[in-house]
């Protein structure tokens, strides 16, 4: 699996365990996504299995590889076995490989007749009702920015669900953010506020933000499935949700009719519309859901996701005198910038600020790294400066990194000081032992003094005692 997939929906799917994975094999889009995530050779092995009765003798399978490809084929078969796609069976006294029957059926169906299911083939909303790209972006931005603004504390209420889907249950955004560790609940006031990882979340690119929210959403479903014992409707919910998200990726830009979705799909469809991945639009007495750019970002995974996110218009200009000009009307963007920039002036469409030592150190102490700050400024660079190299002036980027190193110059450890050893042999042995434990913080051979982490005090005491006895002191 290539590295850009390490943090994606597909990696989540292939990381699932037995029973949950089996339930995915009856979902057509999951089958395609799983197939594409495999090693090339594994895909070809599966393709050869598609048109068979289900099992092929092991001798025949191993004859597929050339001599130099034996180990590759073995690795491919092991990968397929790990995902429960292939299993070793005995067939008429001979070893054979059998393909998962539901996976084979779905794959065969996909190859023979394509993925379009009956409910959404052909039917499309009237062309006049289709929103423009700008409208789609505006809707996605409104919902997602609402969530971010709630996260930074800029508004007391999370964004509401779209009015067209009032009947469906909305996502519980506050508890979703809390479970993801982005917000912490104050025990006394019962209000939520942003956590350290919440700050890091703010500065991350859109794909990472989206993926961590969706991952938490799926993890909740997975936990529900775990409670229900892996079987039953809760487990199927997870499979339906994953299938729905993968379908967004495979049928990019194709609107779907809300009333014609299956009952279980409507729940997740409404949730994704709430988060801004789908834009509801009423037309001809029906509600249609049109995927927004965010759906494409999520579906694209790491690499393609970044490309889609980069298409977003930048707005930040950083000057070498540490001045920051941000052409934005968004309260969220201003709030995010305030995390590490001192605001000097706020005009209707312009945020003017300065990166000062105080503002940057405050952000660094809140757990944000220098690379995240510089990365944020680079990622949202105004088109005018985005063409220059470096996008963020080297002096600014270096200074932020220096401030970060400054914070790390001193480090405190709970330590125990050992001194007045009875002889150099005992000192040398104790020092060596501390070194072996990886607990030695400081040694002064002249004065025969050792500083060792307090956690290892007991181990040191035992060692020194036995050494003393051994040396006869």
């Amino acid at each position, binding site marked *: 699996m290539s590295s850009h997939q390490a943090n994606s929906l597909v990696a989540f799917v292939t990381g699932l365990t037995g029973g949950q994975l089996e339930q995915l094999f009856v979902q057509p889009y999951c089958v395609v996504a799983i*197939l594409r995530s495999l090693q*090339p050779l594994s895909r070809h092995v599966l393709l050869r299995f*598609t048109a068979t009765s289900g099992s092929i003798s092991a001798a025949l399978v191993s004859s597929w*590889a050339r001599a130099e490809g034996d180990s590759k084929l073995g690795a491919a078969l092991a990968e397929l076995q790990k995902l429960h796609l292939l299993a070793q069976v005995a067939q008429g006294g001979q070893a054979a490989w059998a393909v998962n029957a539901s996976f084979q059926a779905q794959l065969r169906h996909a190859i023979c007749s*394509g993925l379009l299911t009956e409910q959404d083939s052909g039917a499309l909303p009237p062309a006049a009702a289709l929103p423009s790209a700008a409208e789609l972006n505006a809707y996605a931005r409104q919902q997602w920015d609402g969530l971010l603004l709630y996260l930074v504390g800029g508004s007391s209420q999370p964004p509401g669900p779209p009015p067209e889907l009032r009947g469906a249950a909305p996502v519980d955004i506050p508890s979703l953010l809390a479970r993801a560790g982005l917000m912490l609940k104050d025990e006394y006031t019962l209000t939520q506020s942003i956590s350290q990882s919440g700050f890091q979340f703010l500065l991350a690119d859109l794909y990472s933000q989206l993926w961590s929210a969706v991952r938490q959403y799926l993890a909740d479903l997975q936990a529900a499935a775990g409670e229900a014992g892996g079987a039953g409707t809760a487990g199927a919910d997870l499979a339906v949700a994953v299938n729905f998200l993968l379908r967004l990726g*495979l049928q*990019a830009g194709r609107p779907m009719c809300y009333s014609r979705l299956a009952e279980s799909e409507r729940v997740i469809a409404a949730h994704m519309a709430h988060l801004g991945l789908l834009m509801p639009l009423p037309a001809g007495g029906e509600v249609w859901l049109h995927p927004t750019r965010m759906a494409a970002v999520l579906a*694209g995974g790491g690499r393609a996701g970044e490309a889609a996110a980069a298409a977003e218009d930048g707005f930040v200009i950083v000057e070498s005198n540490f001045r920051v000009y941000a052409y934005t009307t968004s309260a969220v963007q201003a709030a995010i910038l305030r995390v590490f920039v001192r605001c000097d002036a706020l005009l209707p469409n312009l945020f003017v600020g300065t990166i000062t030592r105080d503002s940057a150190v405050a952000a660094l102490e809140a757990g944000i790294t220098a690379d995240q700050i510089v990365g944020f400024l680079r990622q949202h660079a105004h088109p005018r400066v985005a063409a220059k190299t470096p996008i963020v002036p080297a002096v600014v980027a270096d200074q932020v990194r220096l401030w970060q190193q400054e914070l790390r110059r001193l480090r405190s450890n709970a330590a125990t000081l050992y001194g007045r050893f009875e002889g150099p042999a005992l000192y040398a042995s104790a020092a060596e032992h501390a070194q072996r434990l990886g607990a030695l913080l400081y040694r002064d051979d002249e004065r025969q003094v050792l500083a060792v982490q307090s956690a290892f005090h007991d181990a040191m005491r035992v060692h020194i005692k036995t050494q003393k006895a051994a040396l006869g002191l």
Partner: protein
Amino acid sequence: MAAEWEDDSSLLAVLLDVSPTGLAHLAAIPGLGLQSLLEQLLTFLNAFTLLSDANRLAVFTAGAGGCQLAFCSPSCQPAPLMAAAGGHVAADPWPPSAAILSGLQRVVQQAAAAAEVAGVQPGAAAAAAAAAAAHGGGGSCQLSSALSRVLCFIHSMQRRAAAAQGSLLGGSGGGAPPAAERLQPARLLCLTAAPDVPSQYIGVMNAIFSAQRSGILIDACQLGAGHSSFLQQAAYLTGGTYLKPARPQALTQYLNSVFAADARSRRYLRLPGTARVDFRASCFCHKRPIDLGFVCSACLSIFCQQLPACTTCGTEFGAGDKK
């Protein structure tokens, strides 16, 4: 291995012979008609697009009237169409089967209409087609020009994809190596039932050499009765696979298990090879395949009989019959 394409996706161009001769030979194969061929080809194309989201596909048909593009992935659309769509490169929607099928049917119907005009009935015996081929290939497929057209198409698609990727990498500020070195691997699959047309020897060989030089694999699937010397040589020289299915009615299984594999996977898989390649050249004077011939010492033109002077470059062989 920095110069390798970063995933295993590839660009596949399929060239389907729909010339009157080709169709006549196709109809003569028991258990495989044109309709069945299209259906089986479609499952293969579906499987190919299923394998990777970055796989790109183009389907060409070569008829008596020339080579036509029946279908291509949206990301392969020619530039003017792209501009009309606002320069927006959408991800290829999946599956393309409906679009492929309508494109192929349109072209094949045109070809069938052309065949009727030419007086060759699709159901006619192969003998009639062979006779047509002997008349300088009036009803057969212009393989050489079709190959050239497809190679040009592949070349421009590879360039465009590399340029798009280069600008993407450049935009993110990474010190990426020049993108021109990294072209998406491409292959060309020829599906034909018709025998070779010897008069096209020079053109076909030139197309094969240019494919070999630009690293494009030529796969060939010969459905008809005899072997095709041209396609055998094409597969041999470009590192592709030449296959003459023993049971053409089970075409989809051959296609899926042999031609779906990308170039890198083929290193590890045991694929049907060709025991004996017919390397015979065609003479330049009568376009006949020959075993022994005369070669011009200046320009390497091949002749089946001894001539006083080379008809290609004009060199005189005057001293030839000195005892």
